[in-house]
């Protein structure tokens, strides 16, 4: 529960700003305004804190994208970079853990020695020499590849600020503002923990979804103003796709709101925690729909038609370069991050520990924000996994899927949510039977569909017309017949 979370950042900030307000405004002739001042100060500080948290933890996303994708691709360089973590011979050179103060690096040394003893190679002299050499090459030992993003940012910063000659300069400059600012505004309404949020109006869910819908306009303007046919097509595709997927998304979110009985995100999480059941187990269909529509909303493979690099070069942001490109790219990842956080909040119980209340009493020392971030990172790993496994869907197929499958399914999902809320939920804790039965039905359906293969469609592969010539095994002289 929220009370159990010791990481009361908002409480601390409030205390701090009240102290500040007391000692400044409170001592002046505006003393009546000190409450307002403290509130404004709190909001400002919390906005900065949330923004900073989001921007720093977003690096993890890029890291997951790079590393997990590399492992799926079986790419050697990227998959093997972690190795230098545990292959370190020690000896002449100074290990990084040796530099830590007060001997805090000792466990690393023990681990390292143990690993080398158990699994190390004494095969060749050069291996030892090599590993030693390697530690000199740099700081590979610490989060390999993690700080690449900072290098990228520096690169973007130093690039030229270019506007195409024939572009509509006003719109070209304004469009990224619309996209980036609306993306960052999203995080005003996303709570990172019971006490870590920057704004919490009663209708935070509605505001969130409203702001989610602004970026497509920016995308469209960006595509239009670049005066490039690729960007134009990309912009139009983006608009069409986002329209088609926004409605199922809203209906799915509505189902979640109906089930939890609130339009407030924090209350949705608390409802899940109080009722002892994550929405995932109550609305598995809704979770699947939300995942699909969110992937489409953040324009990732398999729904990345707007920036399909195979045919549209880079889609609607082809003409953007340098820092603007970097910021647009960041906005894209921020939207993906928001999608993951929202999935974790809506369906995975938000900052509730894995295992629910049973575990919660033993893990009270872990702040809620950690659970939420871990859940959202896992969700992002799923995003990456989907991206690595599936291909890009064509425009017409995307739209058809959106309108003809997702929209009816989301309505069905809404119906299920209404039924659960009105008739099944008795105003108490969910009986364990309810999520159990629903999950069992979902799993059974999934397995049934997954093993199902229509033999008739397999027959259909024998296509009717054929000029096929039966080719027998070759032998000397067979061609002369």
């Amino acid at each position, binding site marked *: 529960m929220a009370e159990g979370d010791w990481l009361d950042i908002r409480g601390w900030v409030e205390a701090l700003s009240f102290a500040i307000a007391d000692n400044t405004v409170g001592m002046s002739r505006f003393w009546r305004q000190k409450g307002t001042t403290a509130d404004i100060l709190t909001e400002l500080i919390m906005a900065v804190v949330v923004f900073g948290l989001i921007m720093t933890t977003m690096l993890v996303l890029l890291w997951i994208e790079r590393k*997990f994708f590399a492992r*799926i691709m079986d790419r050697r360089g990227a998959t*093997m970079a972690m*190795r230098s973590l545990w292959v370190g011979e020690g000896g002449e050179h100074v290990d990084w853990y040796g530099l830590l103060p007060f001997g805090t690096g000792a466990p690393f040394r023990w681990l390292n020695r143990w690993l080398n003893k158990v699994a190390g*190679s004494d*095969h060749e002299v050069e291996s030892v020499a090599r590993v030693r050499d390697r530690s000199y090459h740099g700081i590979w030992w610490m989060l390999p590849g993690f700080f690449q993003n900072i290098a990228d940012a520096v690169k973007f910063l130093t690039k030229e600020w270019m506007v195409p000659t024939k572009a509509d300069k006003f719109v070209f400059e304004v469009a990224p503002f619309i996209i980036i600012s609306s993306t960052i505004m999203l995080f005003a309404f996303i709570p990172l923990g019971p006490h870590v949020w920057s704004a919490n109006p009663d209708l935070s869910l509605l505001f969130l979804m409203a702001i989610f819908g602004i970026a497509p306009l920016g995308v469209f303007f960006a595509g239009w103003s670049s005066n490039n046919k690729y960007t134009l097509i990309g912009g139009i595709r983006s608009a069409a796709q986002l329209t088609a997927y926004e409605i199922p998304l809203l209906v799915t979110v509505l189902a979640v709101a109906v089930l939890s009985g609130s339009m407030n995100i924090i209350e949705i999480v608390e409802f899940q925690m109080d009722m002892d059941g994550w929405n995932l187990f109550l609305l598995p269909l809704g979770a699947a729909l939300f995942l699909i529509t969110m992937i489409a909303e953040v324009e990732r493979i398999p729904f990345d038609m707007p920036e399909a690099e195979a045919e549209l070069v880079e889609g609607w942001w082809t003409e953007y370069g340098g820092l603007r490109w970097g910021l647009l790219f960041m906005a894209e990842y921020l939207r993906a991050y928001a999608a993951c956080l929202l999935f974790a909040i809506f369906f995975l119980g938000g900052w509730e520990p894995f295992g629910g209340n049973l575990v919660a009493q033993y893990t009270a020392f872990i702040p809620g924000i950690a659970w939420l971030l871990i859940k959202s990172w896992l969700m992002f790993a799923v995003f990456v*996994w989907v991206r*690595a*496994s599936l291909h890009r869907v064509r425009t017409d197929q995307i739209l058809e899927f959106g309108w003809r499958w997702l929209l009816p399914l989301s309505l069905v999902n809404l119906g299920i949510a209404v039924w659960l809320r009105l008739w099944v939920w008795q105003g108490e804790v969910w009986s364990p039977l309810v999520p159990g039965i629903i999950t069992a039905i979902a799993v059974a359906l999934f397995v049934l*569909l997954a093993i199902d293969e229509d033999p008739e469609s397999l027959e259909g592969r024998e296509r009717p017309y054929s000029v096929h010539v039966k080719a027998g095994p070759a032998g000397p002289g067979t061609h002369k017949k």
Partner: protein
Amino acid sequence: MAYHPHATPNFRNMIVRPMWMALKTALRTIPYIGSRSRFLAGHKGGEKYHAQQVEMIDEWTAERLGPDHPSVGKIYAGDRETSDLVPYLERPLTVMYPYERLEELEPWLFVPGNYNGRIGIIWETCTACKLCIRACPNGCVHMTTEKRVNVLDTTDEGDEWHGYGSEIEEGGLVARKKEEFEQIEEDYNLVLEHNDAPQQYDFGDLIKLDGDVATVRWETGGVDEVPLADLQPAEEDIVSGRIDNGRCMFCGLCMEACPFESFFMTNEYDGMSGYSRQDLWMDAPRTRVLPVVHQERVDAELVKRAKQERGKREKRAAKAAKASEQAEA
């Protein structure tokens, strides 16, 4: 022809199959579990996926190469997924070129002895016959002049090709073996040599010859009196080996054209770039290779050359004798 048995768009194929395939590949990259779990083995329960180990070299070849060859007794996998270096990880390490090189770390994986790398030339056996120049499709091989020791006179007394080179004369070039002559030969590893080949001799002009003591002005500066026995005749000869690397396409036709075993492609893939076209002109010191690389073949070539020289001299001597006879008559 054979369609794939499951090639139908349906729900089963929508996510389950491709996503499981992708996850399987990711799980295989986990060090210990990835290679040992049967669940993650090859498709349809095939054999071990990564690093099916075989011996690098078969037995009779190993006998032929001798035990010192780096390939002998080494484990090798078809996909190069393993090495002896860190065997417990069973995946190759990233070679952080240019700080590390594969041929330094795992020479047995750097297989090709016939790799077409930078052109290398053993000056000692080049006769400037220009066959390489004719063979080159792009015209990137050029002749140049370089100082070299007259190899036909470098050997000890009693060898079959001794003494058929030019002789030490006043005003001519001489060379002296450096003190670390043997050491240079020993250290010289063609595979690892990424810079100019080391010079084994000091060159200088012979100013004065006085019995057994010669006065030499060394190229590096300084005039010395050295015993004649230390010196060897040198000459500034036309040799092949000025390469326009900007044009070279490493086809190896020049190597095949050379009849004297002096022109070949080294294993070096490095140090062949530059910032201007002029940088790509590789002058003779860059393409030089010490004769120790092919000592046997060089020696065989020298025997041949000495035989020719001997025959030539005998013929000349006979001619001179005949001429003198005629003159007398």
